């Protein structure tokens, strides 16, 4: 049976709703907080939005990786632990390993770039291990990453001998701290370099998901793994690769967290980050049953979370109520998104 073709204006409307729908929630929440804090007007100030976008960067970077994983029908609960492990590894490297390097190498000021590379590498390794375990043992991702969630956190605590590892200020070049500084330097950047980096990576990932073979394969695996196998896709290898990608993103988020904390390698940091990351992807339209999710949606999801947290602080809502509000918003956002899809499908 041929379904009736919708009229042109109706199709335009659904198209607009699909593209701008996610922003509607963001606009609504922004308007709500702007109204609640209308006396000072500080909530809508440029400075405050610079703050909000910086607070989006860490969750957002990790969420990019999580988007791909969720599109491929997986989940990664170990993101927060990976971030903690990365900060500890970077701090230990700068404190313990770096002094052992030859003087000639250090004269080139390679310490921080090396630490960053190490951080991203450790993240990638964690992700690849997740993927290898999931493919190799054929256990669902939820269980495997629940295990590595504990294991990576434990590894971080063990490496750091249960304390926080501090890196002296001299070892941190000024540009490193500026990555996630609220006031960008130079000024013409308008927002922190980390925000631009996140935008750049997002654009790259969006193009990748749409125009590359592995990108399309991720959707196939998430939508129906059997079909993917049937179509000649090497599913186990793809999974390792996808979790590796997610791990790289988590590693980068760890590097940013390291910068955000001012060179502190803390094994307890970023606890609960994984749930915020998953919430951001889900608010942005990702489906935990796989096959759905967009980079734009994820970014908006992260922004919604950051605006909520910042807005609650500005409006003087107590901590306990904040948590309730955020929980309720997550449920509403996802329900609305399902309704929206129900209409366009």
């Amino acid at each position: 049976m041929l379904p009736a073709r919708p009229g042109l204006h109706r199709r335009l409307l659904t198209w607009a709703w699909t593209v701008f729908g996610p922003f509607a929630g963001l606009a609504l929440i922004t308007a709500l907080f702007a109204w609640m804090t209308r006396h000072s007007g500080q909530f809508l100030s440029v400075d405050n939005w610079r703050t909000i976008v910086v607070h989006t960067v860490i969750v957002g970077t990790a969420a990019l990786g999580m988007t791909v994983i969720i599109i491929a029908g997986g989940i990664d609960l170990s993101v927060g632990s990976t971030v903690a492990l990365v900060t500890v590894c970077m701090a230990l490297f700068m404190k313990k390993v770096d002094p052992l390097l030859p003087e000639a190498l250090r004269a080139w000021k390679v310490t921080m770039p090396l630490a960053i590379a190490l951080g991203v590498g450790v993240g990638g390794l964690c992700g690849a291990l997740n993927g290898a375990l999931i493919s190799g043992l054929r256990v669902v991702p939820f269980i495997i990453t629940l295990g590595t969630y504990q294991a990576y956190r434990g590894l971080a605590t063990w490496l750091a001998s249960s304390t926080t590892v501090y890196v002296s200020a001299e070892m941190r070049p000024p540009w490193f701290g500026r990555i996630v500084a609220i006031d960008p330097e130079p000024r013409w950047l308008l927002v922190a370099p980390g925000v631009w980096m996140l935008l750049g990576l997002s654009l790259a990932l969006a193009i990748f998901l749409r125009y590359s073979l592995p990108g399309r394969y991720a959707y196939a695996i998430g939508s129906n793994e059997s079909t993917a196998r049937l179509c000649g896709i090497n599913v186990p290898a793809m999974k390792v690769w996808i979790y590796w990608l997610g791990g790289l993103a988590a590693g980068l988020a760890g590097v940013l967290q390291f910068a955000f904390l001012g060179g502190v390698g803390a094994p307890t940091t970023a606890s609960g980050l994984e749930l915020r990351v998953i919430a951001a992807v889900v608010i942005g339209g990702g489906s935990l049953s796989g096959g759905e999710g967009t980079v734009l949606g994820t970014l908006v999801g992260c922004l919604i979370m950051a605006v909520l947290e910042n807005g609650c602080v500005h409006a003087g809502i107590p901590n306990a109520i904040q948590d309730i509000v955020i929980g309720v918003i997550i449920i509403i956002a996802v329900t609305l998104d399902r309704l929206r899809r129900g209409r366009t499908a």
Partner: protein
Amino acid sequence: MVGGGWRCVGVLLVVGLIAGCGGPPEGGTAAPGGSGPGVAPARQGVVLIGFDASEALIGALGQGKIQGLVVQNPVLMGELSVKAMVKHLEKQPVEPKISTGEAVVTPENYKSPEIDKLIHPVRAENVSGASLSGPKTKKWKVIVIPKGTTHEFWEALHAGTLKAAAELGNVEVIWLGPQKEDERDKQIELVHSAVAAGVDGIVLAPLDAHALVEPVEAAVAKGIPVVIFDSGLDTKKFVSFVATDNYHGGVLAARRLGEVLGGKGRVILLRYAVGSESTEQREKGFTETLAKEFPGLTLISDTEYAGPTFDSAQQKSQSLLTRYRGQVDGIFCPNESSTFGMLRALEGAGMLR
């Protein structure tokens, strides 16, 4: 067939990761003083020395379950912090370090009037009167950021800040903090938000002596003065540091423990959390005094951390007690949550006098 190959890769990766990590860094664990049959059994009950007063802890003290509590003066700390900030805002000179005093409460002295004032401070309910973006009603708008909002210590401190606000009359105090006392990133975000909202001053109890340096320096660079209280910060850019002499608090705890045990016995230090300047000072004061003044007291465990919450403290205490049951005479815990967790664990294990 395909799966088999991947299984191998998975196993190899695990083995590789474990092998590649190397051994753990050397810990400072003092070996437990033997647990063989030759060791004399511990005497009846364990002596517990804690830090900070809450209703539950004072109650336990009254029943003789706790032999001593080192108390600070949170109300005074809150009051002096806000007053120091306002003084600075009104261009008057402020002392760079303000001490708020500490004392030992024992089952013998806890009913005396001056101690009673310390252990039953006025408390503020955890409700927020003013908001960051609300209309400015007073001359100065100051945000006070504690380490957490759930311990009674912070409620008393909150009362102190409100007392100062009432006395001064020209300052509006906003009270906002992270929930758990290890949410470094939350606290940094709060400082950011306060700066963005354009407050006149920030009064901060840093969760981490290093991680909060950069946000504080950025705030100062924007012309917003910062007063640090309770716990130190690794910078010189703040107006004043208002705190208990924590090191001295640890010294007092060690002396009280030595006194009750008669200078002989085996002792456990349950540390609080990594990176917390104030409790690390207390722990340092405690261990150094033990080593210097009480050669008869041996420290059998000082590597365990209670963690940020009551339940983490209680779990850690229970594990410690099953490990050292019958071998421990005295315990020191450096803050409210660790003391409470240890108390509950001791009660559960029936190890109190």
